[in-house]
C-alpha cells in the first residue's frame, strides 16, 4: 500500500516560485491501478516523480507499506526504492541490446543473481510483454511500440512493489495506443501489481483505472472510481475534463435551476440551497433531441445548428437562446440543419452542483457547418 500525505513541491522559475504540487494526499491499495489525471502543468508528473524519488518534496510524507520513503527527515534515494518506472520517452538505453536493457536492473543490485537466473528473469519479463526472441536486437532498432514494451519489461523485471507509469502511451500513434492500453490493462490485472499512472487523456484514465484522482493547479480536486467521476463530477472543471459536457449555469431554486428562460427541474447536490449559484452538467448522450415536442418536463425549443454524421451517431449542436448545447442523436433520426428541434434533459440525469466558475471553451458564435 502506498500512502502519500500532504505532499508539497515548488519549482523556482524566472518569475519567482511556482507551486507545482500543493497538499496532495492519496492512498493506493495493493494491486490497484491508480491514475493521476489532469491537464499539463497540474502537478501530476511532479507527484509521480516524488514517489519515484526523482524530486525531493518540500514537505509531506510518502510511505510504501510500513517504510517511509520520503518525509519525517528521511529521503530514500531513487535507486534504493522498490519501484519500476516507465518514462514518457521510454528512456531505452540506446547503447545496449534489448537483453542488456532488461538485465540492467538485475545487474546493478547489491547481490546480482547468477547468470542463468538473470537470463531466466529477463526472458520471463520479455515474454510478459510479448518481446521474446528479440533479446540480441540493438534497442534503437525497435519500433515505437516495441520500445514501449521493452520499457515495461525493464520496469517489471525486478518484480517491484509498485509500478510507475508517466504518460507511457502519449508517444504512440492512435491505433497502437488503443491496442497498448488493452494489453496494459490485462497485464496489470493479471500481475495485480500496484500501479500509479499519469496521463492527461481522460479516455485512457477511464479505461485503465480502478481509481482516478483529477488534479488541477497542483491539487487533487476529486478522487473516485471512473464511474463516479463521470456521473457525479464535483466541479465544473472535473465535469469538463472527464467526458464531454454542456454547462447550464443558473440560480438554484427549490427543486430546480433557473436557466434558459425557465426552471430546469433537477436534483441538488449536497450543500446547495436556493439562492446559490448552481451548475447543471449535461452529458451529450443523456440529452434527447426530437423534431416535435413530446410534452415531457425539461423540454426546450431550439435550432439545430450542426448535425454531423459520425458513423455510430449524429453529433448535434443546438442553439437555445445564447447557449450552444451538444447532444447525440441516433443516425436514423431525420434532422436538417437550421430546423427547429425540441431537446429534453431527462430529470433522472439532472443534478445541479455548486458553480466553481469553470467553463468549457466556448464554441464560436458564428460557424458554418460542413455538409452533413
Amino acid at each position, binding site marked *: 500500500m502506498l500512502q502519500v500525505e500532504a505532499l508539497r513541491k*515548488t*519549482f*523556482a*522559475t*524566472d518569475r519567482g*516560485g*511556482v507551486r*507545482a504540487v500543493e497538499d496532495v494526499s492519496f492512498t493506493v491499495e495493493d494491486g490497484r491501478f491508480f491514475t493521476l489525471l489532469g491537464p*499539463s*502543468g497540474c502537478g*501530476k*508528473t*511532479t507527484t509521480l*516523480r516524488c514517489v*519515484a*524519488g*526523482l*524530486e*525531493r518534496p*518540500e514537505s509531506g510524507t510518502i510511505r510504501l507499506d510500513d517504510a517511509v520513503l520520503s518525509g519525517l527527515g528521511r*529521503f530514500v*534515494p*531513487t*535507486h*534504493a526504492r522498490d*519501484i*519500476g*518506472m516507465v*518514462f*514518457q*520517452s521510454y*528512456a531505452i*538505453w*540506446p*547503447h545496449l541490446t534489448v537483453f542488456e536493457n532488461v538485465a*540492467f*536492473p538485475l545487474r*546493478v*543490485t547489491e547481490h546480482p543473481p547468477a547468470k542463468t537466473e538473470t537470463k531466466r528473469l529477463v526472458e520471463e519479463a520479455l515474454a510478459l510483454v510479448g518481446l521474446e526472441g528479440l533479446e540480441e536486437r540493438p534497442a*534503437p532498432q525497435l519500433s515505437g511500440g516495441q520500445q514501449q514494451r521493452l*520499457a515495461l519489461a*525493464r*520496469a517489471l523485471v*525486478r518484480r517491484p512493489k509498485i509500478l*510507475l507509469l508517466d504518460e507511457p502511451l502519449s508517444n504512440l500513434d492512435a491505433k497502437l495506443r488503443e491496442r497498448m492500453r488493452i494489453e496494459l490493462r490485462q497485464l496489470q490485472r493479471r500481475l495485480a501489481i500496484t500501479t500509479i499512472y499519469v496521463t492527461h487523456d481522460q479516455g485512457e484514465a477511464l479505461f485503465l483505472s480502478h481509481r482516478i484522482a483529477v488534479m488541477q493547479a497542483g491539487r487533487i480536486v476529486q478522487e473516485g472510481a471512473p464511474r463516479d467521476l463521470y456521473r457525479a463530477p464535483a466541479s465544473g472543471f472535473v465535469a469538463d475534463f472527464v467526458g464531454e459536457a454542456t454547462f447550464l449555469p443558473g440560480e438554484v431554486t427549490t427543486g430546480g435551476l433557473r436557466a434558459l428562460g425557465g426552471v430546469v427541474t433537477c436534483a441538488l447536490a449536497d450543500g446547495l440551497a436556493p439562492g446559490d449559484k448552481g451548475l447543471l452538467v449535461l452529458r451529450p448522450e443523456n440529452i434527447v433531441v426530437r423534431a416535435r415536442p413530446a410534452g415531457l418536463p425539461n423540454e426546450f425549443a431550439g435550432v439545430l445548428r450542426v448535425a454531423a454524421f459520425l458513423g455510430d451517431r449524429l453529433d448535434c449542436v443546438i442553439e437555445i437562446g445564447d447557449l450552444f448545447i451538444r447532444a447525440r442523436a441516433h443516425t436514423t433520426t431525420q434532422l436538417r440543419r437550421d430546423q427547429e428541434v425540441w431537446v429534453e434533459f431527462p430529470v433522472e440525469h439532472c443534478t445541479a452542483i455548486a458553480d466553481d466558475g469553470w467553463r468549457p471553451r466556448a464554441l464560436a458564435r458564428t460557424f458554418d457547418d460542413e455538409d452533413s
Partner: protein
Amino acid sequence: MAATTLGRRAGTRFPAWRADVLIVGAAALLLGYLTLVPLALLLLGSLSSGSSALDFQFTLANFQRVLTDRASLELLANSVMYGVGSALFAFAIGTGVAWAVERSDIPGRSVWYGLALVPLIVPGIVHTIAWLFLLSPNIGWINAPLKELFGVTLSVYSLPGMIWIEGLHTAPLAFVLMSAAFRTMDPSLEEAAATSRANPWQSFRRITLPLLLPTAASVLLILFVRAIEGFEVPAIIGLPGQIYVYTSRIYTSLNQYPPNFGLSASYAMVLFVISVAGLLLHNRMVRRTERYATVTGKAYRPRRVELGRFRIVAIAALGLYALVAIALPLLVLIYASLVRVYTVPSLETLGELTLKNYEFIATDELTRRALGNSLLLGAAAATVVVALTAIIAWVTIRTKAPGRGMLDFLAFVPITIPGIVLGISLIWVYFTVPIRIYGTLWILLVAYVTRYLPYGIRSASAGIVQIHRELEEAAAAAGARWWPTFTRILLPLLRPALVGAWIYIFIISLRELGSSVLLYSSESVVLAVRIFDLRDSGNYTTIAALSVLLIVLLVVLVAILQRLGGRTVREA
C-alpha cells in the same frame, strides 16, 4: 510537463548532496585562474611603465600612445581595413559557393560541398606559405608568367595581398555558416511569397534577403574577428611588407630589444576589446535572429533555382575557385618540397626532383623535437580539456549547484581572447606568479588548454543535452547508484562526443601559432613555430616539405574524425 523537464529545478529546502558544490567551487577556481588571471595581469601590465613584469609603476603613457600617436592610428586603420577587407572577401566567396551548392540545381552538389571544406584542413601558416610561393614578386608561379607576358607583377607584400590570402583561408568558414543559413531557412516563406504573386526577383529581394541579413551580418562579424585575431598572414606577409596590424605589432614590440612589455600589453588590450565587442555584437544579432525564428535548426528541402544556361558559368566559377583555393596551393607545396632551390618549374627543375628536404626533416633534431612536442601537447591538451569540460558540462546541465552558470561563462571566456593576446598575458602571469614554467612545455599546455576550453565545453554540453535526462533517471529507477549510472549509461552514450572533441582539439593544437610563438623555447618548440622559424632562415623548400607532412597528418586525423562522426550519427 514543461516545468519538470527543463533544467530549472532550484528551490528545494532539503539539504542537497553537497559534492556538486565542491566540484563547482574547484572548477570555478581553476577556470578563473586559467581565464581571468591572465586578463587581469594583462591589464595591469598595460598600465605599467616597468621594464619587466614584476616592477609595477603606474602609467597611462602606454594607452596614450596606443590610442593617440600617429603610428598607432595607422595600425588601427590597417587592422580595420585588413579585417573588413578579408571578411568581405571571404563572405563573398563563401556565400556564392553556399548559394550554388544549397539553392541552385548545380550538378555534383556533394562534391562541391566536400571541396569547399577542404581548405579548412590546411593550417593558416601553411596556407600563407603556399601563397608566398605563388605570389612572391620574383619567383611566384603566378607572377613569373605575368612578368614575362605583361611586364607587371602582383606584389603579395601589400594590404590587398594580405586580404586575398586571409580571405581565401576563411572563406570555408563563411561557406559553412552561410550554407547552414540557406539550409535552415523555411522554403515555405518563399513559397508564400510566390503564391502571393511575387516574381522570383521580388521574393528574393523582399523576403529572402531581409531574412538572411541578420545572419549575414553576424557571419561578417565572426569573419572580421577571426581576421584581426590572426597572426599568420600579418607575420609572414605583413612584416616583410612593413604593413603592421595589431597582432604583428604585439609580436614585434616583444621581439625588439629591449622588449616593450607595457606597450605590447596595451596593444593586446585594444585587440582584446575589439574582439570582445565584435563577439558580443555577434551574439546579440544571433539572439535577434533566433527571435525571428527563421533559423529553426530544422533542415528543410530547399527550393532550388534552375540555372538553365548559366549552369556552365556556375560550374566554371566553382571549378576556378577549387583550382585557386585548393589545387594551386597544394601543388606548389608538393613541388617546392621536391626541389633543391625554389624556382618557377621548368623541364629542367622537374628533372631534378629530390627527397632531400624530407631527409632533412627526418634528421633535423629541432624539427623532430617540434613534431614530438606538438603530438605530446596536442594529446595532453585534448585530454585535459575533454575531461575537465565533461565534468563541468554535467554539473552545469544536470545539477542545480549554485554558481554553475558562472562555470559555463568562464569556460567560454577564452573564445574572446586572440591567441597572441593569450600568449602575452601568460608571459605576464608566469613572470609574476612563482610558478617557474616559462619556457617549458607546461606553459604551452596551459595556453592550449585555456584556448580550447570553449570547444570542449561546447561539444560536451551538446553531447549531454542530447542524452535525454530520463535515460539517467531510468537507471536510478532501475536501482543503479550514481557511479554505475555515470560509467554504464552516461559515459558510453557520451563517448562519441568526447572522442570527437578530443580529436578536434588535437587537430587545432597541431596548428596553433599565435600563443606558441610567444611562449616557446628551443626546448619546447612546436611544429607551427618550427615552420615560422625556418622561414626566418630562408629555408623555404624544407618548409614546403614540413607543410606537406603536416597536411597529410591532419588529413588522416580528419578522416578518423569523420568516420567517428558518421558513427555518432548512426547511433543517435
